[in-house]
């Protein structure tokens, strides 16, 4: 049976402009959660019907704690940004498949609000971990990423690290890998997919799409796939249920 519960807010901070870090105490959700999975988070305001899918940044299974890092992008996330320690928050999860863990030399590519899932992933990978975080300008989660692997930074304005995007860093630093994990905006994922396939590197992409149910029933959040999907017998996998993590060779961007 799936788990919907009221989590308790332990702490919330704005860690960069419009980027919030939210630590939650959960009954069951944290102990089942892994890197690359997400939670459906429900608004208290009943006029906002749909859950917001927020990716998991860190998990402390022993303590039942879980960290979400999200950007305010509308009224729902704006509502969440006002949560204070002690508040209750309705959540459902963990949802989605998450990143498969291996022990090879790994390259983690996070762009913008695609950076948070890389923290827990970096912590759980057994082999060598190289992380490239691509920001517009302001940095966040830098300490956490540095603690979990070798961190390289790219900024669009050149204010920190290398000026450019995550792939500019990969090329300039000649980073090699046996496996790539990427999460970020669609143009970034498309470029990473092309790079990985050209270099013949196994690559996992975490996809994003507008969702309604979050559990695979409504077929809102599909992405185009090469092969016929198992659910609907067409070329559309469900980001919320079959994903959000897909092999780069599996999806068409």
């Amino acid at each position, binding site marked *: 049976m*799936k788990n*919907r519960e009221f989590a308790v807010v332990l702490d919330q901070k704005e860690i960069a402009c419009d980027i919030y870090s939210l630590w939650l105490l959960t009954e069951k959700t944290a102990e089942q959660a892994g890197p690359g999975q997400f939670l459906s988070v429900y608004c208290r305001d009943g006029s906002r*019907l*749909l859950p917001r899918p927020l990716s998991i940044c860190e998990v402390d299974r022993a303590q039942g704690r879980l960290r979400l890092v999200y950007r305010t992008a509308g009224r*729902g996330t704006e509502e969440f940004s006002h949560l204070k320690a002690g508040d209750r928050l309705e959540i459902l999860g963990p949802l989605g498949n998450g990143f498969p863990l291996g022990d090879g030399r790994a390259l983690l590519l996070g762009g913008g609000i695609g950076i948070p899932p890389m923290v827990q992933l970096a912590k759980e990978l057994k082999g060598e971990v190289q992380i490239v975080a691509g920001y517009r300008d302001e940095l966040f989660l830098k300490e956490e990423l540095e603690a979990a692997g070798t961190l390289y930074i790219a900024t669009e304005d050149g204010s920190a690290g290398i000026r450019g995007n995550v792939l500019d860093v990969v090329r300039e630093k000649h980073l090699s890998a046996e496996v790539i994990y990427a999460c970020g905006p669609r143009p970034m994922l498309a470029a990473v997919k092309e790079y990985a396939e050209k270099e013949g590197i196994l690559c996992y992409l975490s996809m994003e799409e507008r*969702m309604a*149910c979050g559990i695979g029933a409504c077929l809102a959040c*599909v992405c185009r796939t090469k092969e016929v999907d198992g659910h609907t017998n*067409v070329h559309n996998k469900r980001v919320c249920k079959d994903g959000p993590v897909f092999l780069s060779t599996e999806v068409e961007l």
Partner: protein
Amino acid sequence: MRNMKVTLAGVELKNPVMTASGTFGSGREYSEFFDLGELGAVVTKGVASTPWPGNPTPRVTETASGMLNAIGLQNPGIDVFVKRDIPYLKTFDTKIIVNVCGKTVRDYCEVAERLSEEPVDLLEINVSCPNVKEGGIAFGQNPKALEEITREVKRYAGQPIIMKLSPNVTDITEMAKAAEAGGADILSLINTITGMKIDIHRRAFALANKTGGMSGPAVKPVAVRMVYQTACAVKLPIIGMGGICSGEDALEFILAGATAVAVGTAGFSNPYAAPETVKGIEAYMEKYQVEDIQELIGAVRQI
């Protein structure tokens, strides 16, 4: 024990609550939250004669107390559905209602005929999806076309048929009468109301399809009004839907004249919405000492 059983064209439901087509898949995902046997019936997502890929994304967007969707009837086609989804649903103690979609009259008849020997209880004919260009709504907005397709599908169907009506018409009672004249056994209403949302920051439509079908609590007063008008205009039993989130919402529809109700969009904000609706109706019957739900159907009075 209060009697919540209702009968639709000879099919007895243990209670009047079912799921709304397209919001519940074939039940598999929601069965991870509750026993589907708690519901009077499960209504599946629309199924066509062949697999349909649906519309491009984004397919959904939220609106105030509602949402717009333009999924475009993505479905695996009748072959996979019959092999995989019907046997799955048969493992639950609930009635099975299959929503049928198509582009031509022939498509609908083909699916209805394929299902005639299958262990399903009712067919719901989707002539009101606003999100597909051909078929669907073309039949749902023209009384003559609706009467004709009802008559044709009825010839091939092995089960009683429900005609699902569109609210995107000037007079819903004209459509209800047309479906009745064509031989429909049951009516269901409302399908979604065509709407549009514009993202002002991108200066673009929020949905790839430009328009979508609006659902959720915001549409409920429109739906209750249409159910009432329809109940006054025809003799057929009605399945009422549109924004139902609770037993209280469902009771409005029942008092307006619906024999059964469907819970749809509410399942997205609360996966337990449908079974909670059953419990809510039960609690109301307890509170007002209603022995049989029949006493409530169409029992609304003028103040």
